[in-house]
């Protein structure tokens, strides 16, 4: 079984090879390790002569959220094979996503200031989203034309829903 991992740690690419039950290589450097599970959330991790307490905040398939020394680390751990596959997918996903503006929060569309075909400047307000009693301007991430608007005034939107597209 492959023990060679590509890890995205808060958008930094790292490489780790779990050599044995007490040796690990990270970005080419080898360490002695010891991982003790104190309970389902609390771990002690030793690398050579240093120990850190690690809190496993959340976990889902190959994603792990860790709290360590006051910092959260969002880790995506992939084997070499998984990493190759996800790279191919992400190139085409990125091209599609570039033009979409998603709702950053659940809320209600209060006002739409533009219509399909209108030109927008970078940072120009396209619509107002009301959430938690505050009005939030949703701005265009770059200059271009409004391709389409997927929401309408007075209607609720979920977090992550596509609000409009720009081309």
């Amino acid at each position, binding site marked *: 079984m492959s023990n060679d991992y590509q890890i995205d*740690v808060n*958008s930094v690419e790292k490489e780790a090879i779990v050599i044995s039950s007490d040796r690990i290589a990270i970005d080419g450097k080898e360490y002695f390790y010891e991982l003790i599970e104190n309970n389902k959330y609390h771990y002690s991790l030793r690398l050579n002569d240093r120990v850190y307490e*690690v809190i496993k905040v959340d976990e889902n398939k190959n994603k792990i959220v860790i709290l360590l*020394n*006051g910092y959260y*680390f969002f880790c995506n751990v992939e084997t070499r094979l998984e990493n190759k596959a996800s790279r191919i997918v992400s190139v085409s996903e990125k091209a599609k996503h570039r033009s979409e503006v998603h709702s950053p929060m659940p809320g209600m569309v209060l006002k739409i200031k533009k219509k399909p075909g209108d030109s927008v400047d970078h940072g120009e307000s396209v619509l107002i989203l009301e959430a938690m009693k505050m009005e939030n301007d949703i701005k265009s991430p770059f200059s271009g034309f409004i391709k389409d608007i997927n929401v309408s005034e007075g209607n609720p939107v979920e*977090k992550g829903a596509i609000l409009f597209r720009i081309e």
Partner: protein
Amino acid sequence: MFKKVLIFNRGEIAVRIAKTVNELGMISAVLYSDADRSALHTRYSDESYSIGGYYPAESYLDVDKVISTAKRIKADAIHPGYGFLSENAEFIKAVEDSGIAFIGPSSKTVRVMGKKTDARRLMHSKGVPIVPGTIDPISSLEEAKRLVLGIGFPVLIKASAGGGGKGMKKVTKMEEFDDAFESAKREALKAFKDDSVFIEKLIEDPRHIEVQILADKHGNYVHLFERECSMQRRHQKVIEEAPSSCLDDATRKKITEYALLAAKACGYYNAGTVECLVDKNNNIYFLEMNTRLQVEHPVTELITGIDLVREQIFIAMDRKLELTQDNIKLRGHAIECRIYAEDPDNNFLPTTGKVMLHRLPSGPGLRVDRGIDFGSEVGIYYDPLLTKLCAYGKDRTSAIERMNIALSNYLIAGLYTNISFLKWIINNEKFKKGDYHINFIEKEFQSLPPNEWKKHGTKEAELFATAFAAIFRNNKRTQSAVLPVNHSEKNNWGGNLE
């Protein structure tokens, strides 16, 4: 002497008040909503009574329920904490009429200071400097446009009845004014049922400095120095400290004098806070008065050694202040970090979850005021403030060092918090120098590309995180190659992962 004090609040502030009430040998009673059945404030008080409901409107905002319960349980006094009904003049009037003592100022004072335009007019007439702008509330756009020309851009439009950033809009040029004015009015109407607004000149990159005052019902007034509250995000404070690192002695003298003048002008008694803006040239402008205990009161307690809740209770018992201005001394430096259940990467939206592990930092000079423990459900119903972490030291540098270590040792699992965002601020060079103003987070943090802020000073932690992630996944894969995977165990409590 009060025999029983009803604390009409929840979370960390209810717990903190209960501690002083118990220390004074009084019985502490609290109310709890259906969402708060196992909340920490029910465990720290002597008595707790159900008021039902989940949303604040059905529970902690229900005036009739609290007064009838207070009478039924024979409470001598009500402490409102902060938020909820603490600054609601109608509520305070109802308490006054019921014959129960209110631990706070009079309803009359709260009414005057609660209406921003009335407070501005009063302060202006007593010689307390206010931010230049309109005194009277405005509701027509034509009038507003005429007045704004006299004030000059940039300006802030604010709700007369406002607070918490609602109904507040910044306008830099006339073309944006119509939209912003209408938007501010809509927000104000929704939040305060009053769409009148006023216009203030925008002070560029000011500091937010506030003065703690105490006054009894016998005309004695003292101040407990200032708090620096400039570290804000959308008008919500994130980190506070006392004393302020930017005030010289002359400005400190001036701002505390203004605060006492403001308190006297409205016949204030009990604990109150006078909020001011201070510009780059040390000009002071009155902003508003908070007629209650502040969230950030612990930093004042740490540098003065005075328990503000204890003073509040004694004042409500009609006692004279034992403190005099001369025996209130400022000693050392204190910093407070507000630990919130919120996601800095997603517009600081609230996160939810059940606390599965909670270990508080301890050590010299630390104080923790918390509203959660194991098993606490952090939901959508209430404010996402979990804990106030305070560090005290002989000077600002030592307080910052203690805070940095304390944040590293705060362990919590089950939900995502802003701890690493607080670490980022505490380790920021400008913050360390004390060089910041109310737009710091917007300018220094929100302008960073995504994830960039997480890379600062975390090289070793990043190495350990990498090792943990790899070993953890490797162990799981090795185990699942032998054992059948239990799918029901997967992701049964998370939810903050995309």
